[in-house]
């Protein structure tokens, strides 16, 4: 048994410690908001936050993640009140939506470190793939989320 702390709740999971965190989240814990796209750390669909930093959950094992604070898309807010979710809705970002859990978490992490990111900062932080090509709207939504968060302060 390994202990995972996800979105503030602790879970005992009965999986081998070398299991990628992604599959423990999806298949063992039923947290399907985190997606599978490549399995090799390229696409970012599986992005989660571990100690507030973005990680590709296909490339980190349950053993490595055990005991650390993990946040998944489900932990952001279920009623879409988080400023990044709000901005995503206002800018109508998602198309198919498959990449968006990962994009949103990457943006959350960027905005925690940098409350007013420039285009260059966004370029550097947002390496997740979106096959639907929502990039122009992601860029706008991050800037809008920065403003929303500022207004909330």
């Amino acid at each position: 048994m390994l202990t995972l702390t996800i979105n503030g709740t602790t879970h005992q999971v009965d999986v081998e410690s070398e299991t990628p965190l992604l599959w423990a989240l999806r298949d063992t814990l039923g947290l399907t908001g985190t997606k599978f796209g490549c399995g090799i750390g390229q696409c970012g669909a599986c992005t989660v936050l571990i100690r507030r930093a973005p990680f590709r959950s296909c490339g980190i094992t349950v053993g490595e993640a055990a005991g650390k604070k993990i946040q998944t898309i489900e932990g952001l807010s279920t009623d879409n009140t988080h400023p990044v979710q709000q901005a995503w809705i206002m800018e109508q970002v998602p198309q198919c939506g498959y990449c968006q859990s990962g994009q949103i978490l990457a943006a959350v992490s960027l905005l925690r470190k940098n409350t007013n990111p420039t285009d260059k900062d966004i370029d550097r932080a947002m390496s997740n793939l979106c096959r639907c090509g929502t990039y122009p709207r992601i860029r706008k939504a991050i800037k809008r989320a920065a403003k929303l968060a500022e207004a909330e302060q």
Partner: protein
Amino acid sequence: MIATAMSRRTFLKVTTVAGTGLAVGCVFDNEPTLTMSAGEGGQLGLWVRISPDNRITLVVPASEMGQGAHTGQAMLLAEQLEADWDTIEVVTAPVGSAYGNKKIMYQQVTGGSSSVTAWWDELSEVGAATRELLVEAAAQQWQVSDSQCTARAGRVYHEATARSLSYGQLAGAASRLSPPWRPKIKPREAYRLIGKPIPRLDIPAKVNGSAVFGIDVRRPGMRFAAVSQSPVFGGELTSYDERSALAIKGVESVVAVPNGIAVVADSTWHAHKGLEALGPKFAGGVTRGLDSAKVDAMLRAKLDEMGKAEIKGAETIDVEYQVPFLMHATLEPMNCTAHVTENSCDVWVPAQNQDRCESAAVDASGLSSDQVNIHTTLCGGGFGRRLESDFVTQAVTISRAVSKPVQVIWSREEDTRHGFYRPASMSRFQISVGTDGKPERWANQLACPSVAATFFPPVAWFDFDPTTYEGAKPIPYTVPDFDMEYTNVDFGVPIGSLRSVGALHNCFYVESAIDEAAHLARVDPFEYRRELLGEHPRHKKVLESVAKASNWGTALPEGHGRGIAIIECFDSVVAQVAEVSITGRGRLKIHRVDCVVDCGRVVNPDIVKSQMQGGIVFGLSIATREEITIKDGRVVQSNFDDYRIMKLKDSPIINVHVIQSDRESGGAGEPGVPCAAPALTNAIFAATGKRIRRLPIGKQQL
């Protein structure tokens, strides 16, 4: 109670739901003489369900794969229904003849950018008929005439007495009425939804992880399966190590599937580990010995077979262009969940072609079509790949073998190596220009596997495939002596439809060739096109608009260049201008793309915009880096590390202008893609004098 009525094109059926709700079913037919017997009632598809608590469920024919089709179709229906937009929920219809797409041979298909265009009239009619039922129910209750009542935002009003009732309150009574003979369609002046940038219905669930895609389906007792298919197309399984696979924790069984083998386990991870241990070996296959050099040689041989044209003129061009195989790279890999029992087969699948899924499930389960239920989930991208049903065959085969619900998820490697690829092709142009600079003769030859043959084989026998030569014939430019010839080539590599299909390669070919002709004539490429579009005012307007939007003709910084391109496809006209620069070290930077689209009547301008933006990124990604190559009969690439797609940091500023016009609607999901490549390569030419004739640009010297 079931009541039926027939209008010229519509059979409507109304039934009660659980005693109090209202459900409207309907089937559409173009034959005005058809009558319906009571027994045919079962063929009617359900379209609208209104429950007493005012919830409205719209059952629409389209799959939602990111293109906004659920929202677009719901807007058409809700406009006439006068529904309250905030109470609407949308689901994709089950398989049924009522949902056959008239633009795609009455198959239940989401494709051809037709979700709005094919369904405008039908969705309007169902919405209007349902509204009239609700109005009639209210009028009866108040004992006034229908004409004194109005429907608005989910309620019926009797203004004179300031009374109103909600649709939920009226649903029960409405369900006992006969549907109207010929519902009155609300005119355009009265639209409240259509033409407005209404927020999409699917977005709230897509920002909190609750949206259910194919891989998110969970059934009680469900198992997970991983598959491996012959890397050489059509090869056969020769050996595998079942014992080692079964030794992996959680692995339960090994099941043969067409052209491959599956491992079933208690989690996706265990299934993939089991597959590794299984180490299946394959032999033979139809593409054995094929490689990319051979593909090129076969294409060139086909061009040579067609033979060069005799070409005379003041000046001439004789050039060849080429594009590679491409994969769809939907971010959600192919997957399907099936549960087969002795007398039923349920399939949950992200799919674009429900008819094909049903046939695949019937074949693999040995059951009849009325025992098969196809449940369409949200699709994590489609782009044409989900028109196929190979994943359904696998899931049903495996579930039948293990008698449990099973979810098959392909690895990205499997997805990359077992696609239905956009075909590699080659196109030759011989063009002569007269002393006035205008083209006199235009001889174009295209060698390309037939895309239409993948769903209708006879087209390949006669080299007649307007899908594959869309964009090359006809062209909008005035050319006195025009000649375009097409020949099919078969490599044995599976071919499919990729977003915008034939227009994707032909737009690159034709819009490069016309740019070369402009250069030969020493005329500005925009002016040259405009002059030759004399007979096409719609094209001309779009082209002029994009020139204006992009400040065409104004000075640019040193090293920058602009390129222009235009296409008509799926009844829409799109033009784009790209602005690029090349650094001293030969690095390409795409600064901005301006896009103008005329897609006729627009349902939701913001969705059209997002489809153009996404289409441009898709097209630029293809032009700059995407390529599937073949070696030893197999696909070389395996994952996103060697099949690269565009990232945010490389995507340009994109400005989209939507021209609203009175013409019939055109498509929006696909037409944004084709111009991106030629606008880009024409811009590179303007900046550097280097003409790109082969895609992707990749590492070509700029």
